């Protein structure tokens, strides 16, 4: 059978299985149908819910502005799928092209898409992490439970880790009028993703909004009372802090364990794939029928020196899923690379934060517009004489321009003048990222230049 005919047949009566029924999984499924795939489509998800949206969990839901069960993702079209919800995939037989489910069922595929995402990194000591009143925030159920705990009006909330999620949780607590302490191992909030210069602005935001922010501090232990409720946390400076609610916000772990032993290049850093979303096996050989997308994927990006990027970004999940779906149904000459320029947004303390490119690759930063003191500015990150990323605080309408600058590998520092350029903005500063060998809660973006599928890599949890 010629390639063409095989592809036509796949489109008409093939079997496609998607593992991970969330943002990337749903968008891929919709794209497959849009592109005329009329075969059988199976969506496997370990959560009992149909696909829902996570960003509102730390924003609207914690404020009580939306309930957790109202964040279902809008459907662009009916995907006519067999849903296997509430049952995790437990194994993969690449040779037989079969996914094994935890309940013992097996599902055969002609093409497989893996979109199992990440999960919240739990508190490293399980007996402390299971105390009543200790939360993480990743799922809808997490969101609902944490919202209930906040609505009950606890005397103090402790947030461990001041990345984007931790900062948003702290912001929500303040908006609800709750006393909140944030403990961050690094020198400032958001320091892993945006560096110390911008982190200092974030720190001011926390403090001005009444957050008890403690940086350079680790939580060493959580303590419960006799009924198993958390009551206090012990800090590395020797102090003890009483708190009724503790939110562990220490970054994420990739959901790849179910692939152990399958021969696929999957590990703690995610699943390595080529720029067309095709997964690598453990030998670094690209597979033809297994694709990955979303938070769990790790793919080389031409614009960033072909480094393998893992991005925990909503927009990345959507774009990568669409590319994966397109490529699944295409001849090799028609396949497209996933060349999405990373972009991320967050909102906290009433400030809209957005970034493009890969700020964490930057070594220097220039404030090209606005001012840090006013907390309205554009920061441009430079790496080896070129623009590599940008961040805006309440200035997002300029972002398209900076995205283009990144795409065009424009020179750094920017040689031009702009509107709203202040004297402070003429001098590049050290962007002040922490030494990557010292763990923080884990930056949103992790970069690595290692060869794909290096499964012997030692995994060090950020906190222990």
């Amino acid at each position: 059978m010629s390639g063409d005919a095989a592809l036509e047949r796949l489109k008409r009566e093939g079997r496609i299985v998607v593992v991970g029924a969330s943002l990337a999984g749903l968008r891929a499924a919709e794209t497959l149908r849009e592109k005329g795939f009329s075969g059988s489509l199976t969506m496997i998800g370990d959560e009992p819910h149909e696909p829902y949206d996570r960003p509102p969990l730390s924003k609207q839901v914690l404020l009580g502005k939306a309930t957790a069960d109202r964040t279902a993702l809008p459907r662009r079209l009916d995907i006519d799928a067999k849903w296997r919800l509430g049952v995790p995939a437990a194994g993969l037989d690449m040779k037989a092209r079969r996914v094994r489910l935890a309940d013992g069922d097996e599902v055969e595929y002609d093409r497989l898409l893996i979109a199992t995402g990440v999960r919240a990194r739990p508190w490293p000591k399980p007996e402390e992490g299971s105390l009543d009143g200790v939360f993480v925030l990743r799922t809808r159920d997490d969101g609902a439970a944490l919202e209930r705990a906040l609505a009950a009006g606890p005397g103090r909330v402790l947030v461990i880790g001041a990345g984007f999620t931790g900062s948003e949780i702290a912001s929500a607590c303040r908006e609800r009028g709750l006393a909140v302490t944030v403990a961050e191992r690094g020198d400032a909030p958001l320091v892993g993703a945006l560096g110390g210069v911008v982190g200092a602005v974030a720190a001011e935001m926390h403090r001005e909004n009444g957050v008890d922010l403690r940086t350079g501090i680790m939580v060493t232990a959580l303590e419960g009372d006799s009924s198993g409720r958390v009551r206090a946390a012990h800090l590395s400076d020797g102090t003890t802090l009483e708190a009724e609610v503790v939110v562990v916000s220490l970054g994420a772990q990739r959901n790849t364990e179910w692939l152990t032993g399958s021969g696929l290049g999957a590990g703690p850093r995610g699943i390595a794939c080529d720029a067309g979303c095709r997964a690598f096996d453990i030998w670094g050989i690209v597979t033809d029928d297994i694709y990955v997308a979303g938070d769990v994927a790790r793919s080389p990006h031409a614009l960033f020196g072909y480094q393998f990027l893992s991005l925990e970004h909503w927009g990345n999940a959507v774009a990568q899923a669409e590319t994966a779906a397109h490529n699944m149904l295409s001849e090799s000459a028609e396949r497209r690379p996933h060349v999405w320029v990373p972009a991320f947004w967050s909102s906290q303390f009433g400030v809209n934060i957005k970034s493009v490119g890969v700020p964490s690759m930057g070594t220097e930063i220039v404030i090209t517009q606005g001012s840090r003191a006013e907390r309205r500015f554009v920061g441009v990150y430079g790496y080896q004489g070129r623009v590599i990323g940008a961040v805006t605080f309440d200035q997002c309408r300029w972002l398209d321009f900076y995205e283009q600058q990144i795409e065009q590998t424009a020179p750094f520092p920017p040689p031009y003048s702009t509107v709203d350029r202040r004297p402070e903005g003429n001098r590049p500063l050290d962007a002040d990222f922490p030494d990557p060998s010292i763990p923080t809660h884990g930056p949103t973006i992790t970069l690595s230049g290692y060869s794909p599928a290096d499964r012997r890599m030692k995994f060090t949890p950020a906190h222990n």
Partner: protein
Amino acid sequence: MTEGILRQILDYSSRADPYPLYEELRKTPVFHDGTGPYVLSTYHEIKGLLHDPRISSDSRNLTAVAGDPLSETGEDEGEGVLPPSFLKLDPPDHDRLRRMTNRPFGPPHSPRRVEQMRGELGGIVKGLIDAIAKEGDPSRIDLVEEFSYPFPVTVICRLLGVPPEDEARFHVWADTLAASLDPDPGADPAERADKTKGARMELGMYLAGLIEERRKNPTGDMLSELATAQGPDGTMTTMEVLSTAALLLIAGHETTVNLITNGMLTLLRHPEHLARLRAEPDLGVPIVEELLRYEPPVQLLPQRSTLSDIEVAGVTIPKGSSLWLILASGNRDPKRFPDPDRFDPDRQDVQHLGLGSGIHSCFGAPLARLEAALALSELARRLENPRLLEDPPPYRQNAVLRGPRHLPIAVDGIRD
């Protein structure tokens, strides 16, 4: 061929259909005839410049450019009398004033203000159409005079909080100021300038009085809120409230008139869509969106300048140059919109430039969209068998704020 093309665009004879000229211009995405402004006519380039921080909107950066045919007609909403409105300022002043103006107008502080006006707007539309039914001549109705002109001014009055008994006076000033934006080559310029200045003074004094009154007794309308708000940005000075109010009046008025008139004209030329709208009033929303692409009320932005040398589509535009961004041409760029000259309300991907983009994107967009959708749906529903009496209708002189000066139509009757 492009020789003198800017003159041709400004020339009145091109007013009814400038689109072939734009098509010609798009062959040279960055057009410059040696002395005048740099003219941008393609979608992606315009869009890029609207987000480019090296472009200034501050007229003080715009040294009058030799050969810029528009810099000769430099009337604006408050010239010489009022400080520049945020339309003509760069950040940080622009951001501060726009932010303060937005507080009583839109999200996050006033998310429902525009939506809450829906009923009131519907009432105004109904009143105007009722008046045509009662007093108008069904064999000749000028939709501009009788409908699309009075509507937005009345809306602005209500929004600002002009008392109903003063609305008539307000309309006269507004009309005079609006006319000043549309130079009439036949009229005596000195006389006209005098009249405009008089109207501006009277309106200014009237508004200043109203602002004082609202400072003492705030009533929840926009003028009260602008005059009394004490947000993180402080309080607006009376002069700032005045220039903001003048901006809302002129910008919110001129554009909506043309949006509605261009809309009716387009629908009368495409009766199949008019019929659809009659049957299905909700179609007003996508129809307005496509109109903003197909016949945008603001055809071009003539007052931007470059703060640095910048390269666009392979051409270096030197620092200090004046730019014209021809939004209406970008909206018909075939590289961006398939079959761009077709009016197609079913278009899915209609990210047009009709309301601009970037930090200066139309402040009143939500209100303009609502006004136009309500107006067009209601006209479609009530006018019986409407037909154009002149096609093309007589246009206004203005090439920037382009639209018919009159839209004479005939109807068989007006439904209830």
